[in-house]
Each structure stands twice: as structure tokens, then as C-alpha cells.
């Protein structure tokens, strides 16, 4: 059942929904570009993996989700967090290791989570999320909420046993689960054309008895449509879907990656494929949204990111009193 979906018109989306989607994608872009700049100053500790370039995936999928639904993410998780509604200022504070962060400074970039939003965490373990999402989907099924679980994972995780086991279990249990393989071309510095033995990750869906779909990851509308179909099917009891989203990340595997393994694909993507540019052209060309309205979103998001960085820098770090708290609920 693998196939490439044609790019559709803006369809059913209202002007308000289009602006929301644009705001989410722009927020992710500006957040990541700002983290890139700030990381270079040396003020941000640890490892940071940026999602810029991939915004249409998180946004196109999560725009269908609500409080009934849970997602699991990856080490490249900022975009999924923002798209699922995690507070941007708390995220930035977390990345700076501050007590005001989403996880009180105990998680960091690779573990930002907000369970109240159904965001089960960015995850430092490649392939860590899919089994968890089988569980959140099972919980939704047990409780009859109509909720779904969405596991975002990369081309690297598509080769992990946990992911393949989860695809099988989701089919065996007929779970309301969606597996979104974000194929950005490289697992760290290894090309997915080399590490994935099948032509496409989505081809593997057939082996697990579920539909597999390939979409252009630079096209919000393509992702939105494919995700909508899969999520509707899952909510109605039709079981899981594997969606492969193909695109390129704009930055290295981690901040500091010299990226000598790739040539000019990023410049080409930024110039010719960029999801935000294409979105703007589409919605202004069709007259659904004006350039002015989008410009307003741009300046509001820029102000938000400025404030997030300023507040994060000013915020207190955790103290000695925080070191040994919250290991257990009770002990």
C-alpha cells in the first residue's frame, strides 16, 4: 500500500488554522535558529540537535491532535514539543539548564517533556519512543477516549528492533497508533540510503500489515493530509499507519557537527524546498491569508523567542535542594 500522495490544495483548512500552522512552523524555525546562534556563544550546555527544515512534519501531524493524544519524540525533539503545545519559554529555560525549565533543568534538550500536554518527552535513546506509544495508544483504547498515539522517529531508529517490534505489536493489538518516520537523509553521519536496506522506510509497513505512505516532508499540506487520513483511521478503530516523511535537516546532527559528509543539499533545500516559503507562497497565492498577516506572525514569534532567551538567561539554576528530589513519587 506504499505510495506517494499528491500534493493537495489547502483544502478544508480555515484561515485561522492556516495561520496557526504557520505560527507553529515559524516558532520552531526561529527557536532552532536562535538556539543555533546562542549555542555558538558557549552559554548552552550539553548536546543540542536542531529540527530546522523539518517543521512541516511535526506541525502537519500535530495540528490534528488534541489532549486525548500523546506523542513520543526523539533527540531532535524541539519541533515536536512546540507543535504539541509545550510552553516555548519553559523549553528555552530547560535548554539553558534553568529551574524554570519544562523539567526544572533536570532533563535538558534531549528530554523536554510535558505530560499534561501529552508530550511524552524528547528521547535520548534512538528507538526509545515507539514502544511507549504502543502503550499510550493502548491506554486510549482501554479508556475509549478515541485518542491516538504518535511516535516520531528518525531513519536511524527505523533500523532499531524496538521500532520494528512496535510496528508489529501495534498491528497485532490493532492500536490507534501512527508511526512517523522522519527520514532526513542521515542517521548522525550515515546516509539512510546506505543504512536502510529497503528502498523506503514506508515499504516496511507491508511487512507489519499496515498502510505505508511516503510524503514530501517540505510540504505542510502533504504531511497534513497523510496524517489526517491515518489519524482518522486510527480514531475509528482502523489500526496503525506508517508514514515516511522525507526531507533534509538544515543543521548538523548536533551543534558542532562539521557536516563534511554532505554537499550542497542544505543550500538547495533552503532555497528551493523550504516548508515556510512554500507555505507562504501557497496560502498567499490562493488568497486565503495575506502577506501582512504572516508578517505579523513573524514579528510576534520573533518577540516571543527574544523574550524566551532573555528570561532563560536570567532564570535561576537548580540548587542543591533540587539534586535528590523527584526520583520517586514516594520512597
Amino acid at each position: 500500500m506504499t505510495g506517494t500522495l499528491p500534493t493537495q490544495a489547502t483544502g478544508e483548512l480555515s484561515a485561522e488554522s492556516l495561520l496557526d500552522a504557520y505560527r507553529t512552523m515559524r516558532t520552531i524555525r526561529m527557536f532552532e535558529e536562535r538556539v543555533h546562534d546562542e549555542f555558538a556563544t558557549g552559554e548552552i550546555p550539553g548536546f543540542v540537535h536542531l529540527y530546522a527544515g523539518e517543521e512541516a512534519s511535526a506541525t502537519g501531524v500535530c495540528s490534528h491532535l488534541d489532549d486525548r493524544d500523546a506523542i513520543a519524540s526523539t533527540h531532535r525533539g524541539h519541533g515536536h514539543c512546540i507543535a504539541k503545545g509545550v510552553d516555548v519559554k519553559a523549553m528555552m529555560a530547560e535548554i539553558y539548564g534553568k529551574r524554570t525549565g519544562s523539567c526544572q533543568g533536570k532533563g535538558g534538550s534531549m528530554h523536554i517533556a510535558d505530560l499534561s500536554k501529552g508530550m511524552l518527552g524528547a528521547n535520548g535513546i534512538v528507538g526509545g519512543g515507539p514502544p511507549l506509544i504502543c502503550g499510550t495508544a493502548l491506554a486510549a483504547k482501554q479508556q475509549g477516549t478515541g485518542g491516538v498515539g504518535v511516535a516520531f522517529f528518525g531513519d536511524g531508529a527505523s533500523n532499531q528492533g524496538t521500532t520494528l517490534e512496535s510496528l508489529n505489536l501495534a498491528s497485532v493489538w490493532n492500536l490507534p497508533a501512527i508511526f512517523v518516520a522522519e527520514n532526513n537523509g542521515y542517521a548522525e553521519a550515515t546516509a539512510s540510503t546506505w543504512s536502510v536496506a529497503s528502498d523506503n522506510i514506508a515499504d516496511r509497513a507491508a511487512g507489519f500489515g499496515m498502510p505505508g505512505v511516503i510524503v514530501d516532508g517540505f510540504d505542510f499540506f502533504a504531511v497534513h493530509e497523510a496524517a489526517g487520513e491515518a489519524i482518522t483511521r486510527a480514531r475509528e478503530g482502523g489500526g496503525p499507519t506508517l508514514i515516511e516523511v522525507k526531507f533534509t535537516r538544515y543543521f548538523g546532527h548536533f551543534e558542532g557537527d562539521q557536516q563534511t559528509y554532505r554537499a550542497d543539499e542544505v543550500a538547495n533545500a533552503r532555497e528551493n524546498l523550504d516548508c515556510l516559503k512554500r507555505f507562504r507562497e501557497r496560502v498567499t497565492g490562493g488568497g486565503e491569508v495575506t502577506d501582512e498577516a504572516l508578517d505579523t506572525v513573524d514579528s510576534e514569534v520573533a518577540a516571543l523567542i527574544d523574550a524566551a532567551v532573555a528570561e532563560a538567561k536570567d532564570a535561576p539554576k537548580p540548587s542543591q535542594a533540587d539534586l535528590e528530589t523527584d526520583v520517586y513519587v514516594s520512597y
Partner: protein
Amino acid sequence: MAREISYREALNETLRQEMERDQSVIVMGEDNSGGAGSPAGEQDAWGGVLGVTKGLYHQFPGRVLDTPISESAFVGAAIGAATRGQRPVAELMFIDFMGVCFDQIFNQAAKFRYMFGGKAVTPVVIRTMYGAGLRAAAQHSQSLYPLFTSIPGLKVAMPSNPYEAKGLLTQAIRDDDPVIFCEHKALYDSIGEVPEESYTIPFGEANIVREGDDVTIVALGRMVSVASEAADQLASSGVQADVLDPRTTSPLDTDTILESVENTGRLVVVDEATPRCNVATDISALVAKEAFGSLRAPIEMVTAPHTPVPFSDALEDMYIPDAQRVINAAKSVVEWER
């Protein structure tokens, strides 16, 4: 006379009572009912390879889930479901199989609460069978609870008899933290008094199995009955042992252990695990540091040797700590002179 049932029956009754009490309790594992997908055969054919979940499938429709042989997926699913309002009890058939799903346990479940800033609650129970004695050889006989004990965020329970099994499993299911529940495979048919009504045994409170002033014997899981047998024989030769069952290795009731050693001045720890970095070394280090002044003899540890579990009965019987080794250790510390 109080009712007597087996360890297996006590676990089954606990699951039944907790599933009746709380709709969010679900059970999953390989062949937890057994017979799934068989065109003609019986569903609930097995009730788990251990028989612990027998009968639950029909009583609780949709809440006893058979799984593929796919421990990473279903243990992870239990953990994920726990974050979304369920209280799953997953059966990891043999503790040895943790090797194929350990990431979900120690990188995911154990870390959520701390790593997410205290906002996650993951009330999952992973029931698992450990221990030697059934000629099950190197990959089905290990005592790997020290690995879980060393990981912050996990609790580890080790019921030593049917009464303990029911009270500790009830507590584990109601507990809001991830619990690794270690059942010794040689105990399933052991019989003991178990109340019919539900009860909990708090974690981190040792059971004083027997009181004595000459030597403290701390024993874990199946080793509690081995230590008790040793204590009976020691008593006949005039040595009175304080026998402690910590019940949980995490949390560990350090106070009761230290109080006992402060009284007896002598410590023997009986641990079926291999000797490096096990619970015996952990308790010994605790006592050496916190009760050094009370010690009247070196600490003795009775453990398995630093080898895989052997298959041949001749070797396996030598491998497992027995009462005679406990007696020898206790006598050596009682008779020790500088």
C-alpha cells in the same frame, strides 16, 4: 486454622482482587492467557507460563493481553500506558530476558519522574521470575535483581513466601513508581498462610523473621527460608540468630539492619546473586560504614560463585547457597577471635 495457599495462588488472587478493585489494572505478557489466535483451541490455555494469570482472561474481558514474543515492545507499552492512566502489570517471563528490553526499563520508566522534573507518574509493575534450582541453565536461572536495585527510579520487591507475595504485589500495583517484582521460580508451589482479604506490605520495611542476639542473618527472596532453616539448626547448637528479610532491596530498610547488627555485633548476608556488586556487598558496605563500632567479627557473605548458572544438577546444587553454608558462615563469625 488460617487458610493456606501457594505462592502462585497468592499472586493470582492478588491480581484478581486488584483488577476487581481498579479498572485501570491490566495484565500483559507472553501467553498470559495462552491460545490467542489458535483456530480451534482453548483461550486461557496456559494462564502464563507460570500459571499465575490463569482464569483472569475470562473474568476480565479485554484486560488480559497476550503479546508476541517481543519484550521491548510490550514492556515499553506497559510503561507508556502507565503514563496515561493505566496500572499495567507486565510479565517478563524470566528475569534473564531483561537483556532484550532493558532500555525501556532503565532509560525510560526509571528516569521519567526525575528527568521530566517530577511531573511523570509511571505506576507500572514488571513481574519477573528469577533464581536457580530448576535445572533451567545459564539463561533462565539468574538472580539479576542487583542490577535493578542499583538504578535510581526503580523499586525492587522480592517476596519470600505466599503471604509476602500477596502483600507486596498488592503494594506494587497500588504504588505510583515503577516496581520490578522478583518471584523466585522455586517458590511457586510453596504453601503458606494467606488472608483472603486484600492487604499491603509497605516497601522498605524489613520483616524480622526470627529474633536472636548472637548473629544477624539478612537473607533475600528464597534465601529467607534457607536462612531460617540454618537458624533452626544454629539454635540447637546454642547460637541465636536474628533473621531479617528486607522484602525490598530498593528501598532498603537500613535502620532495621543496623539496629540488629548493633545488637548482635555480627553479620551474615545470604544472597543468591553472583558475588560482585550484589545486595550482599551493598548491605555489607552499609554495615561496615555505619555500624563499624558494633562489629565484633568480619562480615560474611554467602552468595553464588562468580560463574554463570550451571545446568548439571551436581553443579547447580553446589552453586546455590544452602543452609549448611549459612551455618558455617554464622559459626565462623560467632567463633571469630582477633
